[in-house]
């Protein structure tokens, strides 16, 4: 790849990071954290974007970032108060900046009107402060910024008749050397302008015993033959203009003579503590002089004065600037750097490589299982050395797998960070005031999962604001604060990641939901539903239709689509709602889509895997505890509760007749929303970590089955979708309308 193109990619990646840094910083400011560190971080983010944008000639971006940065600089300097209104404007500016970055990246056309109006608003905010941003902008746009700041004292002389050259008198002050500038290099620079003759005046050099090795004692007179203008010479001295005495004059015959070093100049001064730093008076005197002689007189006077001040610089400057390399200074430096040695050492790795590694480790896990099985089949005793080594191998394999998965794990922050903007937009569209609270952004989950939760989450948040929160007047009428709260939380729970979207709105209007469900023929008019069941109706396909969907949460996607996409990830979604107090949507997802801890069970001669995370306990049911309700619904009495019993072999269509409960093994499982059921299977084979192979990708989606895996003997085993199995029973009980899983065939590959 072209190196510049690669850097451009880096730039846009970095922009994304800076933009999210910017947004989170502004949000902290919105929350009242206006400490210097936060403001600095925010400023730096915009500054960085601007810097890179300038390098790529992204004019629109630079211009807007500059206005933005100017405003932030004022906040930083305490000249602008970070009021709620100001921060809100800054947040909108950050959105606009993000848009500009993305437009620049994708070559799209930015929303000119938005940018212009925000830039104007920012300028209005900044005005009152002293910054003259118009000028600063010009400085940067012309690409000559490094020259424009030069305060050029009147330089052009009326005398244009004899452009023979220049005489430059140059006397470094100690600070020039102190900043690691070098007189010889400056002379070299001047000699690049034309032929020069240089004379050095060493008359103020003290005796060796009195010599300060870092003092400044020399001065030079340079005669330059060149047609160049004064500015060219000045730019050679650009970095040292404040650290030297510099006198530039047109060369004329008279001047040549007059400018020769004069012995009288160099009387060593009796140390005046005052250092003359500004050469401006000299230049001013010179520039206005029409005759050479008074000029030189001025120069001599100035030089004499200056010399007095510089002759003993270090005696006058206390130990703070000790030039002798005193050990304490060195120690100070190194101890300081020791303190910072905990640099976060990170590397960037192409995701493809990590994915490949994960695939390979998956194969390794399968291979290890196969090896174990072969060894057992060969009849080696469990106590044999081979078996012990295999245990070790299994342990190692597992650790490798965990470590590799950890590489791809990422905090959900990247998704959460997109939400504040969404909230602002939806809030603006609905005219509601919304505060988004987030918690648990650091919760880690596999990158493949992260990529796929953004869409459902976006929809859930839209839904929470649009349908969950009441309009402002209704809130006030209900005695709630004007501002609605949407809370986004992530946490780990029993090997899964749980994401909750909670609002403090009115809660689900169950009467309306039920009426609508009846109207759409989703439930029988006489159905008796619990509150929870009613709430869950909103996930039914066909519940959400155009007439109930507004612009915001609509976009043609109902909650059923959200649920389906969540389920396709092996996740589940549920809702809990309290009238008047709000609703909470809970999304639960596996931490990874790559591996799973499972219970290996036999069902009617097939091997199935039940995800371990769903299993609460295993038990041997007693016939006496199993009761039949109606014709074929069975429940198990367990610790004073009745729990529905599901015969897996029948749910999947392996058998037509139910298995006798006391001849089977039962697994108490918990599905979505804490719904429990007892699954009965023929036998338990053991526990195993399995590598998930998608059934959809290799075959097709099968109801009741989440995915498949390859077992140690090379055969395919299906992974049970516990939620689906549990909900099938519930639906059966609920509606008497069995969504029985169709029988299926699967070819072992």
């Amino acid at each position, binding site marked *: 790849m072209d*190196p*510049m193109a*690669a*850097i451009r990619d*880096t*730039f846009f*990646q*970095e922009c994304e990071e800076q933009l999210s840094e910017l947004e989170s910083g502004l949000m902290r400011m919105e929350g009242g954290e206006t400490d210097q560190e936060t403001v600095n*971080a925010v*400023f*730096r983010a915009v*500054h*960085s974007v*601007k*810097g*890179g944008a*300038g*390098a790529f*000639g992204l004019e629109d971006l630079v211009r807007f970032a500059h206005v933005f940065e100017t405003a932030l600089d004022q906040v930083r300097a305490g000249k602008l108060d970070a009021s709620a209104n100001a921060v809100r404007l800054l947040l909108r500016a950050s959105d606009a900046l993000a848009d500009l970055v993305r437009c620049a990246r994708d070559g799209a056309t930015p929303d000119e009107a938005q940018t212009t109006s925000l830039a104007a608003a920012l300028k209005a905010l900044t005005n009152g402060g002293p910054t003259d941003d118009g000028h*600063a902008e010009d*400085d*940067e746009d012309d*690409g000559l*910024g*490094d020259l*424009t*700041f030069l*305060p050029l004292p009147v330089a052009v002389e009326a005398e244009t008749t004899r452009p023979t050259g220049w005489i430059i008198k140059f006397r470094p002050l100690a600070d020039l*050397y*102190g*900043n*690691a*500038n*070098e007189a010889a*290099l400056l002379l070299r*620079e001047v000699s690049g302008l034309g032929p020069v003759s240089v004379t050095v005046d060493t008359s103020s050099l003290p005796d060796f015993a009195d010599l300060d090795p*870092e003092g400044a004692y020399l001065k030079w007179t340079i005669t330059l033959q060149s047609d160049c203008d004064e500015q060219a010479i000045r730019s050679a001295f*650009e*970095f040292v203009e*404040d*650290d030297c005495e510099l006198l530039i004059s047109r060369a004329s015959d008279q001047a040549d003579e007059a400018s020769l070093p004069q012995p009288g100049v160099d009387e060593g001064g009796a140390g005046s503590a005052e250092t003359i730093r500004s050469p401006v008076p000299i230049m001013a005197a010179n520039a206005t002089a029409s005759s050479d002689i008074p000029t030189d007189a001025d120069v001599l006077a100035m030089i004499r004065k200056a010399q007095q001040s510089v002759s003993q610089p270090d005696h006058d400057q206390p130990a703070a600037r000790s*030039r002798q*390399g005193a050990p304490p*200074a*060195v120690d*100070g*430096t*190194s101890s*300081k*750097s020791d*303190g*910072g*040695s905990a*640099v976060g050492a990170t590397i960037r790795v192409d995701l493809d490589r990590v994915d490949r590694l994960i695939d390979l480790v998956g194969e390794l896990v399968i291979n290890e299982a196969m090896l174990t099985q072969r060894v057992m089949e060969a009849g080696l005793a469990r106590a044999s050395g081979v078996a012990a080594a295999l245990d070790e191998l299994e342990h190692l394999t597992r650790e490798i797998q965990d470590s590799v998965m950890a590489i791809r794990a990422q905090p959900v922050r990247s998704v959460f960070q997109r939400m504040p903007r969404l909230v602002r937009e939806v809030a603006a569209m609905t005219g509601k005031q919304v505060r988004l609270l987030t918690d648990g952004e650091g919760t880690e989950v596999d990158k493949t999962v992260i990529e796929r939760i953004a869409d459902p989450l976006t929809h859930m948040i839209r839904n929470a604001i649009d349908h969950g929160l009441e309009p402002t007047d209704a809130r006030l009428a209900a005695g709630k604060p004007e501002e609605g709260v949407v809370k986004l939380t992530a946490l780990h729970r029993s090997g899964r990641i749980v994401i909750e979207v909670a609002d403090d709105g009115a809660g689900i209007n169950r009467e309306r939901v039920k009426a609508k469900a009846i109207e759409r023929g989703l439930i029988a008019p006489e159905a008796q539903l619990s509150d929870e069941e009613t709430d869950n109706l909103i996930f039914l396909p066909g519940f959400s239709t155009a007439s109930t969907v507004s612009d915001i949460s609509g976009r043609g996607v109902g909650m059923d689509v959200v649920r389906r996409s969540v389920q396709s990830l092996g996740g589940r979604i549920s809702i809990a709602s309290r009238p008047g107090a709000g609703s909470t949507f809970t999304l639960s997802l596996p931490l990874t889509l790559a591996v799973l801890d499972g219970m290996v069970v036999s069902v009617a001669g097939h091997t199935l895997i039940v995800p371990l995370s769903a299993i609460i306990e295993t038990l041997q049911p007693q016939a006496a505890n199993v009761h039949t309700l109606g014709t074929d619904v069975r429940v198990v009495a367990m610790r004073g509760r009745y729990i529905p019993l599901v015969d897996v072999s029948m749910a999947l269509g392996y058998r037509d007749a139910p298995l006798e409960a006391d001849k089977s093994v039962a697994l108490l499982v918990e599905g979505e929303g804490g719904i429990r059921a007892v699954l009965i299977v023929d036998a338990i084979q053991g526990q195993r970590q399995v590598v998930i192979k998608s059934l959809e990708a290799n075959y097709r989606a099968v109801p009741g089955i989440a995915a498949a895996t390859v077992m140690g003997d090379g055969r395919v085993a299906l992974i049970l979708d516990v939620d689906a199995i549990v909900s099938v029973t519930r639906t059966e009980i609920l509606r008497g309308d069995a969504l029985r899983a169709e029988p299926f065939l699967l070819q072992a590959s």
Partner: protein
Amino acid sequence: MIKTILTVDDSRTMRDMLRLSLVEAGFRVVQAEDGVHGLEVLRDETPDVIVTDINMPRMDGFGFIEAVRRDVTWRSTPVLVLTTEVDAEKKSRAKAAGATGWIVKPFDPVKLVDVIRRVAA
């Protein structure tokens, strides 16, 4: 002799651009991500010229330059400030900290190399 340049900048984009420009001009480039990191790099490297950004987390350019100048080893090593700041105040602060010169971003690779050659012995 090939000259070594230390660049200190928190922006990956800038680091990449500096590296590209300087390597193409025949310099050896070592890089650091902020002032603290820069000082750590200086324990193992002896650059001929240091180029540093101003706005950086942990330790900004001013602090970095001051720390560099405090160390006798780097007393005479040219330090160039690379920054988008155009106002004179920042520049004089950088100079007071001990900066040798400056380059205003967006830099032009030719100009960058020119300035480095100008201050490098």
